[in-house]
């Protein structure tokens, strides 16, 4: 008896229109990539939601740990000179 627990999980990304990025829309189980793509089409694009589908094995995604959030992202907070509003440009220069 095969352990059917191993039908793996895939993340589904849909690109709604030309010019837009693929966006995560959900996940599903499928034995292989072809099945995953077929199922993604059936489940997530029944009403013209997309022109392109990506499926990626969930196990292949490397994610940051929510517990590391502070050390990951805090350093960006004090670098206000990375934002345009940090720089003083006289009003008479006009829009820049």
């Amino acid at each position, binding site marked *: 008896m*095969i352990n*059917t627990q191993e*039908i793996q999980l895939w993340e589904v990304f849909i690109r709604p229109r030309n010019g837009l990025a693929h966006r995560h829309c*959900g996940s599903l189980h499928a034995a*292989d990539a072809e*099945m995953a793509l077929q199922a993604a089409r059936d489940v997530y694009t029944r*009403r013209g939601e997309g022109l392109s589908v990506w499926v990626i094995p969930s196990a292949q995604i490397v994610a940051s740990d929510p517990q590391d959030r502070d050390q990951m992202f805090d350093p960006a907070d004090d670098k206000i000179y990375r934002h345009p509003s940090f720089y003083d440009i006289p009003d008479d220069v006009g829009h820049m």
Partner: protein
Amino acid sequence: MPLAYRKTLIRQIGQHAHSEIVGMLPEGNWITRAPTLRRKAALLAKVQDEGGHGLYLYSAAETLGISRKEMTEELISGRAKYSSIFNYPTQTWADIGTIGWLVDGAAIMNQVPLCRCSYGPYARAMIRVCKEESFHQRQGYEIMITLAEGSAEQKDMAQDALNRWWWPSLMMFGPPDGESMHSDQSALWKIKRFSNDELRQKFIDATVPQALRLGLTLPDDALTWNEVECRYDYGEIDWNEFWAVVKGHGPLNKDRVAARKKAWDEGAWVREAAIVHARKRAERVATPMAAE
């Protein structure tokens, strides 16, 4: 994440997923007997949507560390609950209209606030679900209009379906405030944003005028418009019936679980074959590369 919060969500999202899947059975029962091709296509699409809703919800529950297989096993062993409404039979075509109008209508009332609940994967699943539900309710009400404006027999059929589904639909919002076991904690956790009685009242206020528009009557002698409160007052709900159905004594509890078990057991070879096929293909791709 606090353990109790996780457990509550697993229970609620799991039950919700099971409800979508079991909910396919009463309506699936009428697909081959739909009166026209237009109705058949709509019903087929609706039932297919419900399967999708089940999938979105199972996926949301899986992010909390329970597997699809465990949830399925809970359902087919009878340990997991699902919405009691699906334990009632669909006796006539008018039941399909009434279910779309009232049962999906009640589901929408419950689901819209969940789009803003505190657990992101559940909230996102609900947004997709709510987008799709509105067609379900409209196709149901359209069936009811057609019947209500049809022959005397058709109108009787619509009235009979409304008589049978009205009270169970009101029960879909769960026990009255104060008797609901999980409500207070869920409100604190921002999983539940309105109480059972609040949602029930909203549903009644929305659907009574729709019933009147159909020229049908509601099976509740106590139903009256309360001018002071700007809402309908309604009669006593038979909570004994509700609890009996929850505890497994509804008309079709056993059949529903048996149907899910049959589908799961008879699908076992398909799941196995898919895995073996995937493995063989992976090996076929891997072998020539290894030889190089």
